[in-house]
């Protein structure tokens, strides 16, 4: 499903964020990406949906060679992935409902199906009652859940989530994690960067630890690690 071969990423300012990453993630897997702040987790994730271009190396995702793809095909890659961004990236002038619906409009979904589906997903993240509000009228955790709803709405084959529980209380976090588990059980590949030791250690999955731009550890049913 997702494969990286010797992927390097140097940002224009000279920061070496990734240094030769090799990984293979199978269809239907559930992968935690862990590591200290600034290790390169978000960069690793951004390369998958082509927010960033690798400086060197090859990345394959679905049928696409993401590192060599034509400009015109980038939207196709992104539509096959649902992304929860670390900084949410909600459209500030659209309501919660419109933000989630936008992802469906982009794939030119049948307008009749948009409304029920969006309300469904907002129900899953418990935000149906905030559907008509703007992102600026939401709490941090609520915004994060809208971002999650938008990632889920199209039932993508891959879900990539960058700290989707960073702004959530443990209870809500667990509900969200159960949602991820459920989706994963239905065959969706899930890649999730997280700092939540409790979750990683309880809900055992594959753990990829990134440290200073390289994969330091890659274990099936792994632990968060980094005890203090």
């Amino acid at each position, binding site marked *: 499903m997702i494969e990286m071969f010797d992927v390097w990423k140097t940002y224009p300012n000279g920061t070496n964020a990734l240094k030769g990453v090799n990984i293979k993630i199978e269809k239907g897997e559930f992968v935690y990406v862990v590591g200290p702040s600034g290790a390169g987790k978000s960069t690793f994730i951004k390369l998958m949906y082509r927010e960033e271009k690798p400086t060197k190396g090859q990345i394959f995702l679905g049928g696409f060679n993401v590192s060599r793809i034509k400009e015109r095909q980038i939207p196709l890659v992104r539509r096959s992935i649902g992304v929860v961004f670390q900084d949410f990236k909600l459209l500030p*002038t659209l309501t919660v409902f419109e933000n989630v619906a936008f992802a469906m409009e982009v794939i030119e979904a049948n307008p009749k199906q948009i409304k029920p589906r969006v309300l469904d997903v907002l129900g899953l993240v418990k935000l149906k009652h905030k559907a008509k509000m703007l992102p600026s009228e939401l709490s941090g955790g609520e915004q994060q859940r809208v971002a999650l709803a938008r990632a889920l709405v199209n039932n993508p084959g891959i879900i990539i989530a960058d700290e989707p529980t960073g702004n959530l209380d443990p209870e809500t976090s667990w509900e969200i994690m159960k949602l991820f588990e459920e989706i994963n059980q239905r065959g969706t590949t899930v890649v999730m960067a997280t700092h939540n030791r409790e979750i990683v250690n309880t809900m055992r999955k594959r753990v990829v630890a990134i440290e200073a731009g390289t994969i330091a550890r890659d274990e099936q049913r792994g632990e968060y690690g980094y005890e203090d």
Partner: protein
Amino acid sequence: MKIRTLGRHVREGVKNLGRNGWMSFASISAVAITLLILGVFFILAMNVNYFAQSVEKQVEIRVFLDVLATKENVQQVEENIKAIPKVASVTFIPKDEGLKQFKESLGEKAYLFEGLEKDNPLPDAFVVKTTQPQDTSAVAAQIKKLEFVNNLNYGEGTVEKLFAVTGAVRNVGIAFIIGLGFTAMFLIANTIKLTIVARRREIEIMKLVGATNWFIRWPFFVEGLLMGIAGALIPTIMLAVGYYYLLDAIHSSFEASQLFKLLPLFPLVNQVALALLAIGAFIGIWGSLVSVRRFLRV
């Protein structure tokens, strides 16, 4: 793209005008003000041209005939003149009429020549007008060669100067309108760009969520078009109403209506409306699309 998506884009474009209310307002008013200036100068230039034309139209050739010419000779000369290409009209002025006109042209000084009627020194004459005032000297040269034409007068020297002036005025006017047109375009596009730069983050987010470039462009296209049209309608209406009242004011004062001969309301207003709407719509669309493009590379 599916047809229903087009509908979505149009709706979205309209909604965006409201969502970015303040920005839309700033953009539309900048477009309106810019086009107002352009429109005012367009109307001014058209009227200056009209005035220049009416001055040019007063140019005529006065052909003085030989005192010895018989009636038949005179008729012959008239036909010969009429045969010259580019001659529009030929009017016969008998010598008595000629003296009257001459004295009128002297105004107050006329009394100095009181006794002249008894022994009219003026010959019979023709007044010749050409189809294009600028052809005057060429036609005059041909008439001069005719038999029984003793002399002619069309303000040689002065007329050439007049045409130089009206020509220069016209060229300067055209240069101004073109220059203003381009600066108006620049200003409008610039304003639209600024409103879109403020939304660059939004464009980036849309792309990251999987929107194609055209999916993003369409609503901006509609928005730009609407801003351009709205920004053009306001000055068009202002100019139409303003010009109507200007004409009214001038016609209501006899003095002013003698001094300022302005173009009638129609078709001038139609021309202005067409020009402003075309520019507004075109730059509205162009400005948005160009500015959006800068942020699509995500």
